Each structure stands twice: as structure tokens, then as C-alpha cells.
């Protein structure tokens, strides 16, 4: 299998075309109803007028009747093909686990936060790590200055991990860890922290995300190239299968695909296809399917598309059971179960009128539980703006407690079962997703498909189209493109003193380096390097030894990087999708005119560098902006991921852009943007404008403007509006220059 060599773009485009599945309803509209509706519509055809054409390519009828479900068989929860749920009694015997994802700043701060939440009714832990840790860097690495402690907690060694879980018994508490890049050191340090607390290996329970395929598609928090990354997963599967029977060794995640703009069918299909690839990975590592398939778990995003989300969860369980049975024929029924965690959509949260987000999250939480999730995270309403405060975290947690204890949701298993509409929609989604999974399998599985770049492009196209639907008001977001407030109130968000966290982390690393046994550390790291070279030995077992000897996250990652290298993705950006979905609207044409006039006056098109700084790999926003601006007539340079301010300044100068657009999703802007201004100044390039977009709280606006930022675009800014403002700012600056 060759990873780096992608098939030609033409082949990718061909395969994309093949994926556009159209699924019309199987049964035509009820004749009597149609006649009555036609009257109410004053003679217009109800099928034409009222059919809902979803972005997924499904046609949803305005009404369903008994004939729609005539061929549906009797099915009960807990029985193959598990459409109605993986367990028979579902929530009636035990409700879903309330598992809130959290982590920020130092391990001490995060530990305090966890313990308070557990006392207030939360049942499981879910740890968020900072981006430096995700990407395998210690806190003292020069590339992570703006990232340490920002979007999660900073971990450098097992000493940090021990403080993180101080007072939390790991032999009892189930812990979920979102980690994909630096899985080896982090899982190893969690294990060693547990052992040093006195727990036994077999008692440890929880989940590690460990889903690297989706990182190559959407989230970009990988370290190594795809091939060695897959070996690493195989090693984790085989170690946990032998030693940690209660531990879920992977959480196959659609979440980040939907967050990156994938529609529901794409999210489901690519995730199921990922799962099939992981089963093959485990079998390649020498196990039978029944030895580890029961430990696979899934992770869905639940957005605002209420019916569709419930149908997705039902259809996915059936599709997984069918596909695993057909392909691997396991002996144990447990290998066929799709057990899942869900999180409400972060993307659906808005910066504008943010209290609306409480309502959104509630509706999404209802969809997740009506769809039969095993555990759930509800987002805090302020997450479109910054990190959650204690107050917003409480409201988020209470949303679930109220659903469980006041609304009586857990009293009936699969309450939507038998609904004409829901059963029909479940079938439609099953068919649409199955077609895509089979196409991927025909390409040779998801690893090959990811290598070709097809899933990534398909998701990005879906994202650009969605942005266009929102910008053109075809899709409504209350408070953003409709019912917008004239004046927004500022709300509190949590501010992290990034510099202080970094200093305290660095102090601790230095102390560890002084006190540990240098010779043993050297031996452990050499053993890791050797195993990477020879493919012999289990990398997780070796990492556990290294963690015991106080090797750091950075050192363990480096030992492997020496052999495997660090993966740098090639960025491809779709073009044309935004414009074609938007259609011919006044503001697009107005923007194009403005850009044309600028081009005539200035002798070239407005040129913008879209850049991301730090270890934040969420590039959906940056790509949608790049694609949208290019469609509106800009020349857009796309910078690589993970840049330092100095590197961005260099690129801005080399390409002689008018403006640098910084996309920030992970709270690093207060450190990184002023650093960029400084670098540009140092190189004498004060003519470059800087604009920012992404997740930036209102209270930072003044700070950024003072630092020299010309414009800030929050979530929900329409691209043509932003483009016009950018053109005007450039023109002003050029005039001033004269």
C-alpha cells in the first residue's frame, strides 16, 4: 500500500461523482392526502412544493402513512440487526452516562474542575488535552508557545497525569481520553498513573479515541504518516485486548467529520468504513475479530437536524451489524454491536445571541438520547466564543440531568420505533450510506480512500455548500442570518493565562529531567526507536516502560519520529462549490464587481494569505474562507498547517499579499497574533494587513485591534460581507500609503 502517492485528481473527481447518491422515497405520496393538500395549496402540486430535498440527497415526504412501513419486520431492541438499540432494556434499566468533556490550563486546575463536577452529578470523565500534547510536543518546544494549556490540559509526563487524577480512583472511574496523535505516551502515562495509584491493569475502564483515519480526513492532529500510524493502532488493540478487558481501545469518530461540514450520510458512511478498516488492522495484528471487535466504540456528532440525527443513529447500528457480519462473520453477537458516545454539535453554536445555544444543545441532546446513545456530552452555550465557565458548564450538565430525571425520556426504549416517518427515513439513510461504504470498500478500504484524498474533498465540498446555503439564507440560523439582535450583550468567558501555564509546565519538566535516571531513560527511548525500525515488539508496552522512567510526551514521540518522520499534509481546496450553491445573488455580484474594480485600479486582484498558526489543525474555517474568497475573485494563498508567526510573516512577504487572514479556533490568538505583527514589523513589511476570524471572544476584540488587527470576523459572518470589508480595508491602506 502506498500512502503518499495519491491517485490523480481526475480519478478522485470521478469517484466523487459516483458518491452523489439520490434516494427518493420508495412509496409515492398517499393519494387522498395529496389531493387534500393540493386544495390547501391552492392547486399547487404538493409533491413538488412540499418534498424536503435534504443536503444528503434524500427526498423526505411531507407525510408518511402505514403503507410506507408495510415491509418492515418486527424488531426488538438488543437483537440483530440492533436498529433499535444495542441492549434490550436500554435506558429503562440504566440511563445513558453523562460524560462531560473538559480540560484546560494546568493539571491542578483541571483536577479541581473534575472533582467538583463529579460531586455535582457527572458520572464519567472525559479529558481534553491541549494541542501541544496532541501533536507530541513538550510544553517547552518553540513551536507550541501559543498552544500550551489553551484548548485542553497540558501533559508532559506521568507526574502531570498523576496530579490530573489525584483523588479520583482509576480502578473505579471510567475515563475517556480524546487523543489520536500522541496516543502512545498518553495512554501509557494514564496506565502508569493508575498502576501507581494501586489499580490493576485489568480494572482500568474507559475509552481512548485513537481514531487516526479521521485525523487525516478532517482534524489534522496526527504526528506520523498514515502507515506507521496504523501500526501503532494495531499495537494498542493487541495490548489492551490481552490486558485491559474493560477498556475501549478506539472510538471511531464521525463527530469531527460533521463538525468539518460533512452531512449526516457522509458522516455515517465514512465512519462505518473507518470501522471496517480498523477491524482489518486488528486482524492484521494477529487477533480474531471476536477478540477485539466488542471493544470498538463509536462517536457521533448530533446537530440541529432533529429527525435525521435520530435516523442516523438507528441506521448506523443496523449498517454496522450487517457489514461486520457479512465481511468478518464473527462468532460473538457482541462483535456486531455499535455502542456510541455522542456530543452535541459545536458547529451549531453561535456567537450571536449566545443564550440560544442552551436551547440548541437541549434539542440536540434529545435527538441523541432518542436515538439511543450510550453516553453524552452536552456543550456549554459559550463554546462558540471561548472556553466554558463554571456557570455555563453547570447549565450544560443540568440539561442532561433534566432530560433524565424530569422529562422521563429513559422510560421507553427506542420511542421512535414504528413511526412511519422514522422507519422510512432510517431505511433511506441506510441505503444511501451503504452505497458509499461499498464504494469505499471497492477502492480497497478506507486507508486507500483517505490516501486518494476523496473523503476529505467530499467533506470540504459539503462544507462549502453549507456555508453558501447559510450565507444565502436558504438555511436559517436564528440570531445570525434571521432575527438578528441589534445589540449583542457581552458574556463572560474563561480566560487562560497561557504564559503562566507554560512557565509552570516548563519548571516541572526541568525538575523531572534533573531527578530521573538518565541512563534508563536513554535505554527506554532507544528500545522504542528500535521497535519502530524493526516492527518488532509492542510499542504500547515499551511506552509504558518509558513512562515509568519519566520519559516525556515529547521524548517518546521524538523517538518514533526519528524513524517515521512527521507527517505534513498537502492542502487541497475545493473551488466553485461555494459560488454554485450560493447562486446569483446581489451581494455576490456586488462583491465581484468591487473586486473587479479593485483589480482594474491596482493592477492585480486582492491577494490574501489564509494562515493557521500554532498546533490547531481545525482547518474547516480556513478552507471555507479560502474557497469562498477565491470564488469571489480573490487570489488566495493557503499556508500550511501548524505554522509559527515567523513562518507566516515570511510567506506573506514572499507572496506579496495585501492581507493575512488568521483563522483561530483554539484560543491561541492573544499570543500568536501580536507575535505575527511583531515579525512583520521586524521584516519591514508594515504594509500587510491582518484580519482574524474563528472563535474569538468579543472581549478580545479591543486587544487585537490595539495589536494592529484591521478586522475581526466572528462565527456567522457572511463571506461576501467579509470579502467586501477586506477589499475596502486594503484600498484604504493603499490610499494612506500614498
Amino acid at each position, binding site marked *: 500500500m*502506498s500512502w503518499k502517492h495519491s491517485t490523480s485528481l*481526475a480519478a478522485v473527481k470521478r469517484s466523487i461523482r459516483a458518491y452523489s447518491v439520490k434516494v427518493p422515497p420508495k412509496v409515492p405520496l398517499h393519494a387522498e392526502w395529496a389531493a387534500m393538500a393540493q386544495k390547501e395549496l391552492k392547486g399547487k402540486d404538493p409533491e413538488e412544493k412540499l418534498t424536503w430535498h435534504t443536503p444528503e440527497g434524500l427526498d423526505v415526504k411531507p407525510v408518511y402513512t402505514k403503507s410506507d412501513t408495510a415491509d418492515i419486520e418486527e424488531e426488538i431492541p438488543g437483537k440483530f440487526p440492533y436498529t433499535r438499540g444495542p441492549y434490550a432494556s436500554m435506558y429503562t434499566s440504566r440511563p445513558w452516562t453523562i460524560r462531560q468533556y473538559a480540560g484546560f490550563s494546568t493539571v491542578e486546575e483541571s483536577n479541581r474542575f473534575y472533582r467538583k463536577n463529579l460531586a455535582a452529578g457527572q458520572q464519567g470523565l472525559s479529558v481534553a488535552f491541549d494541542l501541544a500534547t496532541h501533536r507530541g510536543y513538550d510544553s517547552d518546544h518553540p513551536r507550541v508557545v501559543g498552544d500550551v494549556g489553551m484548548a485542553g490540559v497540558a501533559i508532559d509526563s506521568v507526574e502531570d497525569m498523576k496530579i490530573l487524577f489525584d483523588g479520583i480512583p482509576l480502578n473505579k472511574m471510567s475515563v475517556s481520553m480524546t487523543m489520536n496523535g500522541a496516543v502512545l505516551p498518553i495512554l501509557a502515562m494514564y496506565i502508569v498513573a493508575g498502576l501507581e495509584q494501586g489499580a490493576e491493569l485489568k480494572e482500568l475502564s474507559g475509552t481512548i479515541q485513537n481514531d487516526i483515519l479521521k485525523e487525516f480526513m478532517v482534524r489534522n492532529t496526527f504526528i506520523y504518516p498514515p502507515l506507521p500510524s496504523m501500526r501503532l493502532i494495531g499495537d494498542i488493540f493487541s495490548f489492551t485486548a490481552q490486558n485491559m478487558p474493560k477498556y475501549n481501545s478506539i472510538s471511531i469518530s464521525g463527530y469531527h467529520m460533521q463538525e468539518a461540514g460533512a452531512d449526516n450520510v457522509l458522516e455515517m458512511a465514512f465512519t462505518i468504513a473507518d470501522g471496517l478498516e480498523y477491524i482489518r488492522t486488528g486482524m492484521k495484528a494477529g487477533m480474531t475479530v471476536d477478540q477485539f471487535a466488542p471493544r470498538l466504540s463509536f462517536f457521533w456528532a448530533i446537530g440541529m437536524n432533529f429527525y435525521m440525527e435520530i435516523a442516523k443513529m438507528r441506521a448506523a447500528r443496523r449498517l454496522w451489524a450487517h457489514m461486520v457480519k457479512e465481511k468478518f462473520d464473527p462468532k460473538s453477537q457482541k462483535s456486531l454491536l455499535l455502542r456510541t458516545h455522542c456530543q452535541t454539535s459545536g458547529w451549531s453554536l453561535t456567537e450571536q445571541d449566545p443564550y440560544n445555544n442552551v436551547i440548541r444543545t437541549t434539542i440536540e441532546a434529545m435527538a441523541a438520547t432518542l436515538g439511543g446513545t450510550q453516553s453524552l456530552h452536552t456543550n456549554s452555550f459559550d463554546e462558540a466564543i471561548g472556553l466554558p465557565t463554571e456557570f455555563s458548564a453547570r447549565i450544560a450538565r443540568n440539561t442532561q440531568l433534566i432530560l433524565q430525571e424530569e422529562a422521563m425520556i429513559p422510560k421507553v426504549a427506542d420511542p421512535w420505533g414504528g413511526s412511519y416517518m422514522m422507519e422510512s427515513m432510517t431505511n433511506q439513510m441506510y441505503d444511501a450510506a451503504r452505497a458509499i461504504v461499498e464504494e469505499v470498500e471497492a477502492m480497497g478500504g478506507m486507508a486507500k480512500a483517505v490516501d486518494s484524498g476523496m473523503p476529505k474533498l467530499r467533506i470540504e465540498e459539503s462544507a462549502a455548500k453549507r456555508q453558501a446555503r447559510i450565507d444565502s439564507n436558504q438555511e436559517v440560523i436564528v440570531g445570525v442570518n434571521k432575527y438578528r439582535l441589534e445589540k449583542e450583550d457581552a458574556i463572560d468567558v474563561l480566560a487562560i493565562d497561557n504564559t503562566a501555564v507554560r512557565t509552570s509546565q516548563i519548571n516541572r519538566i526541568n525538575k523531572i529531567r534533573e531527578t530521573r535516571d538518565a541512563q534508563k531513560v536513554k535505554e527506554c527511548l532507544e528500545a522504542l526507536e528500535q521497535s519502530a525500525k524493526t516492527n518488532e515488539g509492542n510499542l504500547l508496552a515499551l511506552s509504558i516502560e518509558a513512562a515509568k522512567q519519566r520519559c516525556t510526551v515529547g521524548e517518546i514521540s521524538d523517538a518514533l519520529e526519528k524513524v517515521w518522520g512527521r507527517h505534513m499534509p498537502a492542502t487541497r481546496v475545493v473551488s466553485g462549490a461555494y459560488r454554485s450553491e450560493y447562486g446569483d445573488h446581489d451581494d455576490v455580484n456586488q462583491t465581484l464587481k468591487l473586486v473587479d474594480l479593485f483589480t*482594474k485600479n491596482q493592477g492585480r486582484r486582492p491577494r490574501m494569505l489564509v494562515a493557521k498558526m500554532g498546533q490547531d489543525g481545525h482547518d474547516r474555517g480556513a478552507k471555507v474562507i479560502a474557497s469562498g474568497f477565491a470564488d469571489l*475573485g480573490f487570489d488566495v*494563498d493557503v499556508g500550511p498547517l501548524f505554522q509559527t508567526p515567523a513562518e507566516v510573516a*515570511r510567506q506573506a512577504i514572499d507572496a*506579496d499579499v495585501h492581507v493575512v487572514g488568521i483563522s483561530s479556533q483554539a484560543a491561541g490568538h492573544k499570543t500568536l497574533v501580536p507575535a505575527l505583527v511583531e515579525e512583520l514589523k521586524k521584516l519591514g513589511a508594515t504594509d500587510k494587513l491582518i484580519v482574524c476570524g474563528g472563535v474569538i471572544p468579543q472581549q478580545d476584540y479591543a486587544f487585537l485591534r490595539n495589536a494592529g488587527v484591521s478586522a475581526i470576523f466572528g462565527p456567522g459572518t457572511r463571506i461576501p460581507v467579509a470579502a467586501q470589508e477586506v477589499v475596502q480595508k486594503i484600498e484604504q491602506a493603499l490610499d494612506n500609503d500614498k
Partner: protein
Amino acid sequence: MLSRRLWHSMPVNASRPLIYQGTKRVIASNNISTTDRFSPLAPAYAQNTIIQAPLIAAYSTVASSKTLTLSEQLAQGSRYALAKSITLVESSRSDHRAEAQQLLSYILKKQRDQPLTKPTFRIGLSGSPGVGKSTFIEAFGMYLLEQGHKVAVLAVDPSSSRTGGSILGDKTRMTELSRADDAYVRPSPSRGTLGGVARNTNEAILLCEAAGYDVTLVETVGVGQSETMVAEMVDMFVLLVGPGGGDELQGLKKGIVELSDLVIVNKADGKLADAARAVSMDYTSAIKFLQPPSPLWKTKVLRVSSRENTGIDKAWEAMKSYFDTMTSANKLTEKRGAQRKVWMWRQITSELVDRLNSDDKVKQHVAELESKVFDGKMTSGQAADSVVDVFLNKVKEDRI
């Protein structure tokens, strides 16, 4: 042929060149030899310029203070100045173009007086999408840096035809190189006028050399006629192909292989190593039956793996040997001279077409003629003659 006819029917009076600056005309005091006129300098007027003279030229070595500063900074190797200068030559604004021509002719004059210390080498790289051009340039460029060279990469990205904007993504594909101090990577949008290659790439090469970059790599989109364009602005033309079996050779236009001084089969690694060997044999035997681009040089076929970094040194050796062979026979100077002539004609053509297209009188006339041609009431040839006549009459009127 249209342009040639146009050219010959215009009064040619090049003995007293004029400097064109903005809307003013100045008669140049210094005499310019005929060879100088075959410089790669485009006339310094852009589209939409009001034509005030029968023939306007801009061979000036009189430089403004701005030009002097810029060229001074260029000579010191300032990337900021280099970037700004390339923007100037790419600009469609007439005053920018005038400044650009001033700068270029000043640089040329300086180079005549005091030749560059290091010899410069211009290499064109082409290949179909997906053969790994950027990956190759990243590996090859880093290798050249290790050898002590300064490397400029001029890459041309396609513009969207509908709105004219483009996505310029080369930085993401050449991460290491674009971070290196001795490398300069500049993607340019292609404006569609001259095939896939930005119209002023040949001028940008001169600027890079003036800023001290001794190896310039010109990467093309690799579709259509751009290969020919690139071959006409570089010393050596390299074709990159993938190990994708023999059908790729069949699919390639014979002309492109004929233009190539070196064929590199990329991705000769892992499971593709055997396929790459087979493809390289196919090319070697195909080339035997083709006219070599120069009698002194036989086109070579080499295998490299940009991923595993093998064969890169062999590729550079082959390029150096080409460079030495051609230089020692004084063929490179000859080639560059001939190329300048070709570019003069290309620029005449494009300039005339641009100006013809932007002429209001012509525009009115064309609308009418097009519908006649569409309905078959007039032949396309008759219409073409008529358009040219209208344009030339307009030019004559303007002169009076």
C-alpha cells in the same frame, strides 16, 4: 498570422526609441543597439492605455529613484524587494508596467556592466497533475540548498475562469523549502492570456537572478500549451512522469517529450519501483526515434523517488552536465538570445490582441460582425479582415 500582418502594416520606426511614462512621452537620448531591442522586456504600456504615438517603446536605462532603491535592495537579496518587484512585473496597471520595465532594463544594464558572480541556471519543470511535481521540487530544492545554491521557485497556479480568483497552494506542498532562508517560493495566478504560464514569468526569472538566486525552477500547471511556453523561457526543460504504466507515454503529446532535455520518472520506490523501471525503459526507447532538442545533448531518462530522496543527486548531476555541455559550446547564451526574440513576438501578439480587444470602436464593430458570422451572412475571414481594418483606421486617426 493576424499579428504579423498587423505588425508589418504599421510604420516601423525604431531608430529613435521613446520612453513611455504614464501619459508623457520622452525621447530617449541614448542609442540602443539592435540586439538590445530583442530583450525580454515588454512594451511598457498596458491594456486600456490611450495610444498617443505610432510606436512607443520603453528601452530606458534612466532609472527613477524608486527604481534605484528597489534594484539596490534586490542586489542585497531582500525578499521583500523581490516580492514587490515581481508584483510590479505582474501588474496590469500601466504605471506599474512602466516602472517594471525601467527596473528590468536597469538591472540588465547593470548586469552588462558587471556580470553576476555566479552563473545562473533556469530549469523548467512540467508534468501531468499527480506525478508529484511539488514533492519533487521540495526534495530537489532542499538538495540544491545543501549544495550551496540559492533556489527560486516560480509556480503557476490556475485561475478560475469564472471569477478570475485562484487558490495558490504551493506553500502547503513545499513546506520545508518555503521555510528555508536561501529559497524563495512564489506561486502566481495564471491570467489565461499565455497558456498556463503567467505572462510575466520570464521577467520574474530575471528579478530572482538579480536578487542572487542562481537556480530558478519554473513549475507549470502541466496542461495544454504551457509546456512550450516554459521551454521557451528556460535553459533546460525537464519532464516529470509517474510510474503509471505505458499508457501515460501514449497519452502524452509527442511534442512535449521532444521538448524535454531530461525525463524524470518519479515515485520509483516501494511497490512502484518495478513499474517505474518499465516506464523509464519505454521512454528511453521512445526517445531514440525523436529529434533531440539540441545536437549536443541526448535526452536522458532517470528514475527518482522524491519520497525516499533517492536519485535526486543523479538528477542534479545530469542537469549540471547539460549546463556544462551547453555553456562550454556557448550555446546557452545563444539559446537565451533566441528566446528573447521569441518572447518579443509573443508579447507583440498579446499586446496587440489586448489593445484590439479593449478598443471601444472595435468592440462595437465586433458585436455586429459576430452575429453576421453566426448567421452565416459573412465568412469568418471577411469579418477578421474587417475588424483589423477598423482597428488600424482608428490607430491612424489617433495619429492625426
